[in-house]
């Protein structure tokens, strides 16, 4: 069920460009205004407003107790959030950068993901962990990781990643409202992407777990999410010149996985390429390709291909463009999709 929330700070007027960063900030603000149990905590989220300014203004509006600058300690931040959630609060944790979240992995895997299960439902943990992730912004080492496969491999967590300004707002609202822990992966190179937001028009709050077809096509399906969505949409436009009419599916949620939307698309097109920026080996693409193959084998005209980051530690910024899957690499994969009839 899709509900809609009016854009906050609404003043009558024409649509204005809003960035993904602003949409995320508004989602936090609206959630906090609506529900006094929502608390934001993390390093630099208060006075500074976060290093990406997502939490800008929240401490001023809601006070230090609702938007809290914590000591610099990710396990402590997430561990404290567990205790806060045990007492009925709804903590939203900011991990400053993808690779900074690793010290909190034990809390995440041993407690956040399991508390509901080990207490047989008595103690759900409605925690949202916001993780700016991925590369493409010229960040130095440890600032550009795509960690989604680690989170996907842990039962008990939802893994959500928006690719559009509307989804950034709608999915973050839904994640905060969820009674389960959500790893909310923010594609940081899309923070400054823009969409026109009409101040009065409602922005849909999407339920977690639904993929969406961003571009309809008949020749093949590009399955993607987060930072790779714009790459795929651009590739699909470029492919028209080659005679390929590509469909683009934005997963939006990796856990739960929307098998239905993905399989329906691949059954229509008969060919699929999974595109993401994290490493291919042991990465999300392998899981997605397997699921597609299991469900669509008799509809497939070609093996499901993957276009992923190389299986290397995230490279230094001056080389990252060679690592990140770009339009050409996507089109190369599409070209390899056995377009000639097999004899």
């Amino acid at each position: 069920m899709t509900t809609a929330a009016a854009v906050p700070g609404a003043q009558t007027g024409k649509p204005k460009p809003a960035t993904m960063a602003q949409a995320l900030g508004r989602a936090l603000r609206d959630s906090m205004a609506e529900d006094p149990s929502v608390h934001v905590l993390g390093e630099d989220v208060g006075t500074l407003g976060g290093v990406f300014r997502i939490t800008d203004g929240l401490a001023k509006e809601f006070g230090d107790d609702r938007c809290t600058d914590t000591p610099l300690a990710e396990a402590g931040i997430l561990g404290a959030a567990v205790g806060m959630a045990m007492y009925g609060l709804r903590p939203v944790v900011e991990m400053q950068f993808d690779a900074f979240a690793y010290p909190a992995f034990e809390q995440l895997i041993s407690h956040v993901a399991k508390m509901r299960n080990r207490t047989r439902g008595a103690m759900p943990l409605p925690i949202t962990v916001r993780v700016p992730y991925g590369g493409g912004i010229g960040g130095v080492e440890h600032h550009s990781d795509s960690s989604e496969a680690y989170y996907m491999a842990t039962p008990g967590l939802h893994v959500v990643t928006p690719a559009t300004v509307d989804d950034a707002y709608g999915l973050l609202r839904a994640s905060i409202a969820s009674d389960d822990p959500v790893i909310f992966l923010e594609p940081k190179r899309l923070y400054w992407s823009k969409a026109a937001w009409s101040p009065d028009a409602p922005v849909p709050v999407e339920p977690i777990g639904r993929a969406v077809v961003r571009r309809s096509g008949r020749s093949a399906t590009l399955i993607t999410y987060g930072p790779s969505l714009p790459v795929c949409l651009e590739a699909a436009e470029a492919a028209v010149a080659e005679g390929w009419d590509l469909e683009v599916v934005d997963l939006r949620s990796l856990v739960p996985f929307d098998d239905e939307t993905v399989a329906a698309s691949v059954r229509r097109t008969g060919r699929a390429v999974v595109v993401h920026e994290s490493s291919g080996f042991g990465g999300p693409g392998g899981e997605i390709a397997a699921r597609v193959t299991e469900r669509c084998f008799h509809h497939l005209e070609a093996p499901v291909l993957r276009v992923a980051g190389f299986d290397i530690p995230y490279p230094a910024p001056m080389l990252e463009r060679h690592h990140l899957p770009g339009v050409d690499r996507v089109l190369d994969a599409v070209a390899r999709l056995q377009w000639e009839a097999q004899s």
Partner: protein
Amino acid sequence: MTVQELPGAAAYRPTPPPAWKPLTDPAPLLPDPEPHRVLGTDAAAGADPGLLLRLYAELVRGRRYNVQATALTKQGRLAVYPSSTGQEACEIAAALVLEEQDWLFPSYRDTLAAVARGLDPVEALTLLRGDRHTGYDPREHRIAPLCTPLATQLPHAVGLAHAARLKGDDVVALAMVGDGGTSEGDFHEALNFAAVWKAPVVFLVQNNGFAISVPLAKQTAAPSLAHKAVGYGMPGRLVDGNDAAAVHEVLADAVARARRGEGPTLVEAVTYRMDAHTNADDATRYRVDSEVEAWRAHDPILLLERELTGRGLLDEDGIVAAKEAADVMAAGLRERMNADPVLDPMSLFTHVYAEQTEQLREQAARLRVELDAEQDQHDDNAEERR
């Protein structure tokens, strides 16, 4: 040539950077050099006789519980049991010092504290029996799940106490950890958060001498574990962990301090693990009998019994009555633990998410088919036998 002889050295006078001053005076935070004691000292005269008798009855019951649970491992009724024999004073005092609305955050060895707080003795053992990770509703008893990873429950205690204070509730959280757990990063982060947030938390370290086989000297170079408190800006208290009256007094002070809004305290209780780490461990590989025997003379039940009988508060009849009450508890525990637990395999899928995902629904259906086939096979076999 020394530094003083260097050209221009005499002219150099180091000055502190302009803005710097210590945040906290460390002196009041430092623990006393000797562990605090009550039993066998003049201080015992001031102790509440009713409390001492209650501690005694619970200590005897706790010892019996440890013996019974260890016996259950030998009968295959428990997969494993980490005994707290010798540490009962810490366990019981931790439970009795809390008010009903307070929260206890136990580690895996702290079953006794949970039971003394009112948890069903069988529910406390389901983790170790292997049928459920947590056999009880944490909110009902205000006892967090018994925690197996080391020190990870400490930041939870901080967060919960912090949340309660934000809501204006009078709640104190008492978190228990062992000497080995103090080396974990989560211990550090929890203490730091608690002190910065002035959270109403009490950290109780049961220093029982060993982290499985590793002795304290290989665990820390600190003067004592209580000394670690000063680095976080909270008081450290050192107490004789086998002196139930002393542990209760020190914890009561720390809880009262937290309740007054003055922040967390780190309490180190010096005690000894009389049994091996668990029934699966061979303690003779890392410690000598003479050390164990020396501690036997400092047994927590013995200390309290001596005090109570010496002051005419307890006689032979009272001792027998305490033992009998403990035996009744043990018999009930034994009987209920000898019944096979009834488990529903389909419950594997019920509490992973608030709403089951499509993927889990498919997997649950697969298990249902397997279970039905098993049942059919079972029925067929029964038919053949008939």
